[in-house]
């Protein structure tokens, strides 16, 4: 299934959807599928600064753990606390209720370094090949 067109993507399989200089961040459908059943999502507190392509948290599935990379720099202005009790939302709805943090962009030019949905879909098609 093609990735949603209304957001941008990282090589580490995060997405960011920007509205009014606030970027909502999550992981892609491909990433959640690769991880399998997600059991913990460790997220930063509101107010913390995150930096472009540096880890902002961790995600653990039954079989693996992975760092979460921030697509954009800025201050965390909201955190999806629903994931504390229901981390499976990331599996069930990675582009919707499985969102992780909202960031107030400090460097909007960073968006130019991210992939479009089309570029990301090509990227994962290559990665999926043996």
């Amino acid at each position, binding site marked *: 299934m093609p990735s949603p067109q209304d957001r941008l993507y990282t090589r580490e399989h995060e997405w960011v959807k920007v509205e009014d200089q606030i970027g909502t961040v999550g992981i892609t459908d491909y990433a959640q599928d690769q991880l399998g*059943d997600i*059991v*913990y999502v460790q997220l930063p507190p509101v107010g913390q600064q995150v930096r472009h392509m540096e880890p902002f948290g*961790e995600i*653990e599935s*039954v*079989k693996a*753990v992975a760092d979460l990379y921030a697509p954009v720099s800025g201050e965390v202005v909201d955190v999806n606390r629903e994931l504390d009790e229901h981390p499976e939302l990331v*599996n069930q709805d990675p582009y919707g209720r499985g969102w992780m943090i909202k960031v107030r962009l400090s460097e909007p030019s960073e968006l130019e370094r991210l992939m479009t949905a089309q570029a990301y879909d090509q990227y994962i098609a290559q990665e999926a090949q043996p």
Partner: protein
Amino acid sequence: MSSPLLRTPLYQEHVRLRARMFPFAGWEMPLQYRGIIEEHRAVRTAAGMFDVSHMGRYWIVGERAATALRRLTTYNVTALPQGMGHYSFLCREDGGILDDVYVFRPAQERFLVVANAANAEKVWGWLQSHIPPSAGLENVHLETAMIAVQGPKAVAICAAVLSPSLTHLRRRGCLEMTWQGMAMFASRTGYTGEDGLELVVPAYHGPLLWQRLLEAGVVPCGLGARDTLRLEASLPLYGQDIDESVNPLELGLTFALSLDDDADFLGREAILRAMREGPRRILACLLAEGRGIMRPGFPVLHQGQQVGTITSGGYSPMLGVSIGMAFLAPSLAQVGTRLIVDVRGRSLPVRVVRRPFYRAPREG
């Protein structure tokens, strides 16, 4: 590069079910189909099935079979009643564990040894060099398929699909029968902590058996769920919790040891010596008291000092927290001891608990 992966007789079934495949002990095996937690719950609440054809299967037959095998097993297989099976170790002379196996005796002079996939070649070599030619030895690893059907509904479903006689099997019981003209071995055993059966059929009949069980509602489960299930049941896994440096006493699995007969099995002297001295370390069960997941290799700390390493660890779908196992000094392996596991630099408080982590509710 390494040699190509082996495929079980059920490989095409896994492909058809769109399993995610992964390499395991030289085999291309299903990791998961729909998802580890869903498969795990199917086994805990209904019935799931696993392709375990990768495990080694060897017959030792004839009137010399029992005494020949007794030389190799820590459990006294000569006292095993016909139609029963038992867990045992195969030890070196120095007590180191070569493998942990299941030994079945479906007939007085027929023994089936089921070995871990990772040790299959080693065990086969060991049997070949230690079983005298007067006892018949046959390797059926590649010519048979093996399916473990596990869960509270497993036996009833198998009885309906295969034979009503299966309901009469006792726990650890086994029998040989025919189904649709094919030879079948069945035992009431498993590696999940649930009731269930393990079935062995000729390789070319494996897919038919798999399909019939699928049609009867048994959920296909991968090795991912097999690992979370066996960990909840606190069953050790060779290669993670067991290796040749571990002795059976350290695992606390003394039910696999028979020391009251005079049989001079390999490892007996070392095990007796270890019993006199007492184990230096014991495999303890650790339950997380916070968020974070223990994984193999993570340090276990007591008062800031490392006192052990997680050998098996993960998430327990039934308990909703992480569980793990580690070898600890006997003084620290006491139930209730509080320890810290270093989870990538974060401290996860854990507590030593009684085994198993999860016990299936049993009828009657």
